[in-house]
């Protein structure tokens, strides 16, 4: 089984204010091109799980594999590089750098990766913007566009390094139904056309119903 992402026996504890086990023996795998959503009540641990899978949270027991390689235990620098190269992240809040233009925001992770020249990165960034229908916003300052447009820029930025998997923490949470549907369609198209895997935490039933697979969580466990 060729998993893009695999979690094995993941446990996590919160230590403050009291010892509390938030994730209990979580194991699952995401295949290439699979569009997966994670659902569950508030506090069930889904966002906590997502941040562990994103390599940003290293305080857990268990093992995490990305593209077959063991990630658990690697140092911060390797994890950063991995995140840069293989994982695209979309949050509920867009987190664009306000003083930069849309184009510069999208180019940033690619500049960090350093695989292409600046000119090539610019071309690739414009391509992603075009794919999302926002190429005319390229030179506008990130602070000057609408909420739905900002979220699309965030998605373009998540895609710039052609990651193996896109992870989202309620990416449609701040959007109206029209823009939310837009975001879903973009994700769906990417998974079908480009074999992109997706792992999206969401509260939105309509969104989750249309994905390939729903992982349900309750009290830190995955419900089978």
């Amino acid at each position, binding site marked *: 089984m060729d998993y893009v992402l695999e979690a094995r026996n993941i446990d996590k504890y919160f230590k403050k204010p009291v010892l509390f086990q938030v994730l209990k023996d979580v194991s699952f795998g995401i295949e290439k091109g699979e569009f997966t959503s994670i659902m569950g009540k508030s506090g069930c641990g889904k966002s906590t799980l997502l941040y562990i899978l*994103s390599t940003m949270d290293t305080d857990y027991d268990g093992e995490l594999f990305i593209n077959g390689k063991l990630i658990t235990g690697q140092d911060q620098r390797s994890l950063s590089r991995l995140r840069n190269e293989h994982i695209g992240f979309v*949050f509920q809040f867009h987190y664009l750098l306000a003083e930069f233009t849309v184009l510069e925001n999208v180019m940033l992770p690619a500049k*960090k990766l350093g695989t292409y020249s600046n000119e090539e990165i610019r071309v690739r960034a414009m391509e992603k913007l075009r794919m999302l229908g926002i190429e005319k916003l390229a030179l506008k300052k990130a602070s000057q566009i609408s909420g739905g447009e900002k979220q699309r820029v965030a998605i373009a*930025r998540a895609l710039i390094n052609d990651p193996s998997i896109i992870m989202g*923490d309620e990416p449609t949470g701040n959007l109206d139904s029209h823009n939310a549907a837009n975001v879903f369609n973009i994700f769906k198209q990417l998974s079908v056309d480009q074999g992109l895997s997706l792992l999206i935490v969401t509260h939105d039933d309509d969104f989750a119903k249309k994905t390939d697979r729903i992982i349900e969580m309750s009290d830190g466990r995955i419900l089978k």
Partner: protein
Amino acid sequence: MNAVDINTANAQFETGTTIRNLITYAVSFTLLVVAGFGIYNILNMLIYEKMNDIAILKATGFSGNDVQYIFMSQALIIGIIGGVLGLLLGLGLSLLIDQAPFETDSLPTITTYPVNHDPMFYVIGIVFALISTFLAGVLPSRKAKKIDAVQIIRGQ
């Protein structure tokens, strides 16, 4: 007739000069330390303002060291620009003062304020500016490096 050698005659003058130099250096040093603390303060505040940006950089794949480097460069840029501007201002003012008329009996050959344009002063100035801004930048940039991206993002 009384013969007195020049050092004995000028002894009082020399003592005064030594102490005055000491005072000048002490005051300058203090001012620079205050400026350094000012920069430290600004950089600390900057990090609070930029917390979201730091979190997004880390989520996008920038390492803690990258973030530390960004803030260190900021501190050093302040040091270089501030230092150079200070040197230019100092040069300008000292050239102006050099023109100001000044006569005193104890120094019969002097007609304008005697100004020492020794380049060493300028070298000391810029070196101190760079050192103090470097030191001012170390702690804030280390703090920026350690920021936990997950905590900030989830805090929203």
